[in-house]
């Protein structure tokens, strides 16, 4: 559905995007994560035919954003990170205008608009002026606007930014519904946990380069590399500490006398981890619990982007 080949955007000597390659299948929900200025919005702007790439190309449903820009526009629904609304235009008129802009007939628009307003929970606001709506409502209305022509691909640039927790949850619920409709969705955020729940795949971008791509679990295991393991011991901690320090995959062993536990970082595979536990039991260590700590996605993101710099 989406194929990005060597996409590069240069401003003078600065690379906003550097040789980005990515392929996404139809129906995928792809989360694009990166710090501010990492290249997320640049990528989305190129995909939305708003920005000319310096090199490379991107294809949506086989249509090149460079050569078939007009066709690409019909395939995508784009929601920018910052957008304005027209004064003196009501919510239903706002959708009507964009519907007409996509060549949808008046009769079809009359059926579509109530459905879209219902999808984004704005039916009760259909006769309200758009500029008087709250930020969360404007974001939802903009999302409805991007769906008016039933696009195959949705490009959503930080759709939940600046929203309060309730509005974020509402936005997330709507996106889950869209995922259920089989739309291919590209969604960006600088907050990894926000995307983890709803995305099939995640790409981490930093300094214009895609530094990680895969499912959330893959990214956690492949790139974070280390797992944090906590072992609760009955008996002397020193003996256990010495034992674990001897393992080649173990680092940063710390003892917690109060909790009678040892925490260390482990780099080995899952098989190695099983072997380590077996050895520890054979070594007569009295283990009460042996558990892997939940990796904080924020920490993973910080670790990945730190490595890239």
């Amino acid at each position, binding site marked *: 559905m989406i194929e990005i080949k060597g996409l590069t955007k240069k401003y003078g000597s600065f690379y906003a995007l550097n040789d980005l390659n990515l392929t996404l299948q139809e129906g995928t929900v792809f989360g694009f994560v990166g710090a501010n200025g990492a290249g997320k919005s640049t990528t989305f702007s190129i995909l939305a*035919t*708003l920005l000319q790439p310096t090199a490379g190309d991107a294809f949506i449903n086989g249509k090149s954003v460079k050569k078939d820009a007009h066709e690409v526009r019909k395939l995508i629904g784009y929601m920018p990170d910052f957008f304005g*609304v027209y004064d*003196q235009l009501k919510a239903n008129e706002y959708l009507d205008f964009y519907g007409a*802009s*996509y060549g949808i007939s008046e009769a079809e628009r009359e059926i579509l608009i109530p459905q879209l307003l219902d999808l984004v929970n704005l039916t009760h606001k259909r006769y309200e002026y758009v500029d008087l709506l709250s930020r969360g409502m404007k974001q939802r209305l903009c999302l409805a606007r991007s769906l008016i*022509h039933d696009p195959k691909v949705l490009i959503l640039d930080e759709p939940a930014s600046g929203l309060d927790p309730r509005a974020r949850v509402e936005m997330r619920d709507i996106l889950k519904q869209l995922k259920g409709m089989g739309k291919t969705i590209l969604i960006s955020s600088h907050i990894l946990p926000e995307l983890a729940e709803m995305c099939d795949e995640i790409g981490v971008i930093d300094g214009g380069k895609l530094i990680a791509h895969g499912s959330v679990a893959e990214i956690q295991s492949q790139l974070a590399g280390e797992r944090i393991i906590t072992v609760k011991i009955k008996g002397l901690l020193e003996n256990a500490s010495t034992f674990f320090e001897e393992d080649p995959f173990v680092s940063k062993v710390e003892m917690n006398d109060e909790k009678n536990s040892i925490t260390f970082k482990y780099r080995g595979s899952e098989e190695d981890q099983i072997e380590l536990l077996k050895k520890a039991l054979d070594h007569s260590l009295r283990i009460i619990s042996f558990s892997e700590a939940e990796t904080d996605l924020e920490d993973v993101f910080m670790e990945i982007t730190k490595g890239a710099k």
Partner: protein
Amino acid sequence: MKQALSNPVLIKEIKLRFRSMKSFTGIIFYLLAMCVFVFGFIMLTTSFTGTGYFRPEESFFMFTMLTYIQLGLILFITPGLTAGAISTEREKQTLNILLTTAQTSFQIITGKLTSSIAFLLLLLVAGLPIYSLVFLFGGVSPGQLGIIFLFFFLTMLAVGGIGIMYSTIIRKTIVAMIATYGTMIFLAGVTGFIYLVITGMNTMATGSLATSPAPIAHFFASINPVVLILTLIMPTQSDDFITQTTNIDFPIWAGYTIFYIFITVCSILIAVKKLRVNMKKMR
């Protein structure tokens, strides 16, 4: 025609314009100003002469004044309506969304231009009843008024096109406005001044009116709307004067029409070309 009128940008712009109080107050003040001028002029003239008559030559003078007021209005209001058409969308962050729709750049630009022209036409039409008072007193033919309105329309189109072009290529509305007003001052003022300077210098050099053709002077006279209106109101006298000073017998209205159609087409084409990035361009 039906397709042109179903342009979504045009419909949206007209809707927004007529929901704004600014448009209504603008029309009211414009009509009030016209009324004050026309009725004030008639009152003053009849009072001064003491006869209570309003002669055809006075009616003709009032018509001339009204025509120049209308021209001033077009040259002053059109840039204000068009020079922010695209840049305001950019500043309000609505342009990017508009550009990702299936509308062509031509549709967007013509929609914006047509809505501005439509509002100006409404102003002119709203003022027609007052304008038509001149017919009560004679001195002006309806055909003359029709021709003048045709040239008003052409001027609006050209000035509107220039405004839209600047609005597209310049990011800031205020800069686009300054550029458009600057161009208006050049077309309505500087061109006339250049014409006078060239013909004046020729006269001084030869000691008489032009003996050899002065195409540059004629060109600058042709593209000046003030000169054009003069040739439309007083065709015989003004055409003779221009022919004598430039030694070129080519109607001013023809030169004006060719130049302003050219300007309109070029401005719209540039705006259409520059509205979106050229994704195909090789770097």
